[in-house]
């Protein structure tokens, strides 16, 4: 089905226009800023050539920040994926309480990163930190450690938090992949006498690869741009012990060097690296289908070696034992062991939110008690009532609801046809379009905010609902297009052919035949967008912030509790929980669809 370019334009031009307007133009503005001489107050003084880049390269902290960034991405992505592989395996087995464990994993995913990071910072405090209390009660440490303060631990603390907050999303993507594997394949494997390792190595892993590829790309981008984790936890620490390029760009632009030109230069640099990494990765993975690429070869070599070592060290005798254990002991232990492991996993991932919940009942003094208390000594129920006086919560909830719902609707209307068309047709510029979409995903809003603000002013959209809705839609376009493209491509063309015979046009085929088939994917895209918009902070702060006319979103409103001299943690936690509950409930109601939906076919 090859069509003329003009025809494809009708399907994809809304997406392209949205991307150009909201992302490409501000990105060009960022490049332009990086070539300007901007003084400490933000006033521009003309063209600077490459001076900002030269300054950046001369920064003494550059090497340290770059190595931090590499370690951060490799470690967080790597460990999250390894742990998520195990967790997905566990959640794919049937056991008592499995649903509960799955729900527990949803909470960290659905909660805004700013709020999760805030509670982690609170937990990692030195004297009054609950992590220290817990470790001291266990006898692991004898004196409190300043986890995020001590330069020796600060970076590793944020890496650990980064891993914990990245695992749930990764697990869900891999779980979706696991569930897509046909059970009959395993039966066949069993008949051939494959042990658990061999089954995993030669059946599960190869079949899981498409999901693994998607997970790796999405998680890499997510981790590269997860500004809040580092910013909230160690952002006010002197020095660059735990900075990555993104937090450092912010410091250069607005805190230390006060040089927006140099900050923009670093952002440009950042985006270029990310684009190169993602495109190289995609190419390596895609090329692997026809000819073995370096990545494919490394992958095979690595697993081969692991497999060898496994069988060598295990030897024949232990295999026999483990075989007996598997046949005799395991069936009896399993009904207890799996729920127990599940319980531990659920408790681990819910713990920060339990701390948030319990702390929301503490009074100001107890929040800083040394050592920290597990349960509130005096339950301050009034915190939950007072927060409605401290913050105009009803207004904030209403605004966030309107904006999240409208943005989600808009992005689906624009992205779904484009995803359908690109999945079903080969046309000039198709690859270009898909790459454009992918690249928009790697641009962090925080780097583009000046350009976006300028444009919103130009179209007279400051503090207008439609403007923030359009901007949010643009930033979620990539994810929706990608997921839906995979979904449509995964559906057999034969389904459509009958409808085509009856003379249904492509638009009707998409609406009547295809959409019902890909409903799980649609639900996933819908929920994911909703949550992203619900939690979005930087853009709303800049283009939609007018308390006089009751136009403020929830995350921006909650941030008001961070005062000049103190943070009202109890109210912050109450408000965060109130903001999180609707999202978690929404997530849980569609959880079953979600797992199916993330099986986004493969990378086409």
């Amino acid at each position, binding site marked *: 089905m090859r069509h003329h370019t003009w025809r494809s334009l009708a399907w994809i031009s809304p997406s392209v226009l949205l991307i150009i307007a909201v992302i490409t133009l501000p990105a060009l503005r960022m490049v332009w800023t990086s070539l300007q001489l901007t003084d*400490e107050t933000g*006033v521009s003084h003309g063209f600077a050539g490459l001076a900002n880049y030269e300054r950046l390269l001369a920064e003494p902290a550059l090497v340290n920040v770059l190595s931090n960034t590499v370690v951060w991405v490799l470690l967080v992505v790597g460990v999250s994926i390894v742990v998520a592989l195990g967790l997905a395996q566990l959640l794919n087995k049937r056991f008592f309480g499995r649903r509960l464990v799955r729900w527990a994993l949803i909470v960290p995913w659905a909660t805004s990163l700013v709020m999760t990071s805030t509670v982690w910072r609170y937990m990692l405090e030195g004297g009054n930190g609950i992590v220290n209390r817990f470790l001291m009660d266990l006898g692991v440490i004898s004196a*409190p450690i*300043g986890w995020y*303060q001590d330069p020796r631990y600060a970076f590793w603390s944020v890496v650990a938090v980064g891993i914990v907050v990245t695992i749930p999303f990764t697990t869900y993507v891999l779980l979706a992949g696991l569930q897509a594997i046909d059970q009959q394949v395993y039966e066949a494997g069993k008949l051939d006498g494959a042990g658990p390792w061999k089954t995993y190595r030669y059946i599960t892993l190869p079949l899981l690869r498409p999901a693994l590829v998607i997970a790796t790309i999405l998680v890499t981008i997510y981790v590269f741009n997860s500004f809040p984790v580092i910013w909230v936890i160690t952002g006010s620490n002197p020095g660059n012990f735990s900075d990555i390029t993104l937090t450092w760009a912010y410091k250069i632009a607005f805190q230390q060097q006060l040089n927006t030109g140099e900050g923009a230069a670093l952002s440009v640099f950042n985006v270029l690296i990310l684009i190169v990494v993602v495109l190289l990765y995609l190419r390596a993975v895609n090329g692997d289908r026809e000819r073995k690429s370096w990545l494919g070869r490394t992958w095979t070599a690595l697993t081969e070696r692991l497999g060898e070592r496994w069988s060598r060290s295990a030897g024949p005798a232990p295999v026999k034992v483990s075989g007996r254990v598997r046949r005799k002991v395991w069936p009896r232990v399993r009904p207890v062991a799996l729920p127990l492991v599940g319980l531990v996993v659920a408790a681990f991932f819910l713990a920060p939110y339990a701390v948030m919940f319990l702390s929301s009942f503490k009074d100001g003094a107890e929040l800083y008690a040394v050592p920290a208390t597990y349960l509130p000594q005096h339950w301050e129920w009034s915190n939950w009532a007072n927060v409605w006086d401290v913050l105009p919560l009803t207004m904030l909830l209403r605004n966030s609801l309107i904006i999240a719902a409208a943005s989600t609707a808009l992005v689906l209307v624009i992205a779904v046809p484009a995803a359908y068309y690109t999945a079903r047709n080969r046309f000039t510029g198709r690859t270009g379009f898909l790459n454009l979409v992918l690249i928009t995903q790697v641009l962090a809003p925080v780097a583009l905010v000046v350009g976006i603000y300028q444009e919103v002013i130009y179209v007279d959209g400051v503090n207008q609902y439609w403007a923030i809705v359009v901007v949010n839609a643009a930033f979620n376009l990539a994810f929706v297009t990608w997921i839906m493209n995979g979904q449509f491509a995964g559906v057999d063309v034969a389904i459509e052919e009958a409808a085509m015979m009856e003379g249904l046009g492509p638009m009707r085929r998409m609406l009547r035949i295809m959409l019902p088939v890909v409903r799980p994917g649609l639900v996933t895209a819908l929920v994911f967008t909703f949550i992203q918009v619900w939690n979005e902070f930087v853009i709303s702060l800049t283009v939609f912030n007018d308390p006089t006319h009751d136009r403020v979103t929830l995350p921006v409103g909650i941030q008001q509790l961070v*005062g000049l001299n103190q943070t009202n943690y109890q109210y912050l936690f109450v408000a965060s929980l109130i903001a999180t509950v609707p999202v978690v409930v929404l997530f849980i109601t569609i959880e079953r669809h979600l797992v199916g939906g993330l099986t986004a076919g493969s990378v086409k």
Partner: protein
Amino acid sequence: MEVRRRAQLFSLLSVCTVLTATSCAAGGPSASGTTLDQTSCDKITSGTAAGASPNRPGGGGQSLNVQQASLETGLPRTTTSSKTISFVGGAYTGTTEAYWKDLAGKFEAANPGYKVNIRIIDWNNIDQQVSTMIQTKQYPDILNQNKFSGWAANGLLQPVDSLVTPTVGNDFIPSFKKNSYYQGSQYGLPLIASTRALFYNKDIFAKVGIDKPPATWAELVASAKKIKEAGYTGYGLPLGGEENQGEWSLWMWSNGGDWKSNDQWSVNSERNVQSLNFLSCLANVYKVTQANPGQTNRTDGVFRPFANGQTGMIMGASFAPSLFKQWNSTVNYGIAPIPVNNGTEPFTLGVQDYLVSFKNPGNTEAVSKFLNFFYQTDNYVRFLTSQGFLPTTQTASTALKDDPDFAPYLDLLPIAKFYPSTDPAFPKAQGTLEAQLGTALTPGTDTKSVLDQIQTAATQGNGG
């Protein structure tokens, strides 16, 4: 150039022969791993190092040319005037936004047809937000910030003395008003003030047998050691990014150093290196501070433990008592002057924030009306009491002089010293200091190189 550098090196060398390792190890170009030990630390407070003081404070002060800007700068413009203005401010507390919205409502009721759009931003994000507005030329009509000179230097601000009535303009406490000028014109209206003093825990002092608060660095070390032995934090030292420019200024000034000397930046002066070494001594040699002072923020890391009775001494602030009250703290504490070294005169740090007005065509009349409305004594006092800050006007000082939360600090205002915030280079120096000073307390760090970075930031613009 070469000659000058050699001369500097010479003077440095001769200083080194006089002094012990304390300041010259850090000052020497080849010294990297500075090690402070008991002897070198004790030397700082013993007065023997005082001889090498190149820059005594005192006379320096504000060399600013204060003059009453003439009224004709504020002549009404011919452009059409706008009755709607925007106000952008920082969230001092959780109630700041509520105050301004309420005030705007009252203003609009009293002045039909006028409108004030309020936008309050938390302090973590305000610099980024304001910078974005400036870059996109969306100047707020009124802005509440802690600096102004950079915008004034770029010609973005309108002089404010003509915007407020003489009653309001002449009501400001002279020292605050003086600190609101840039090149002869007043661009900032003093909004709030705070001062600092030594807070000490009376119960801990009684328990370990210290009868009076320390007046010198040597006494402070002695007291802190005793307190530490009793199991408390001797001195709570916050050099984390939140407010370390305040803590640093206090130590710098109390040792006789300063940000600038003879109108030139002198952040990395020998005296200042010595002050920073002393802080390193407190943390790493005497070990009388809390853990990780280089990464500790003031409010959560020092005020809270003090309010909970875990700390002997801190540099407190005039707004701290209202925080202690909110936290239901029962700490029994006294207030004393800042301990000094090298025989420095008593002083306090005065911090003030400003209201400034950007030049937007036709905004003068509405801005003027709103500012005069805000500085009406009852409106202004309500702002101060709700946010917990000291007044910058004489009328409000009189109104608050019987308030026990304000009285002790109002008396300190006459000896207040200020940041050199009227210098356009100060924000960058401050930003670098906030971001780097704490790293100097990691044992073995070359303290001078940290101060060098701040000096460089102050003396080099973005143009390079």
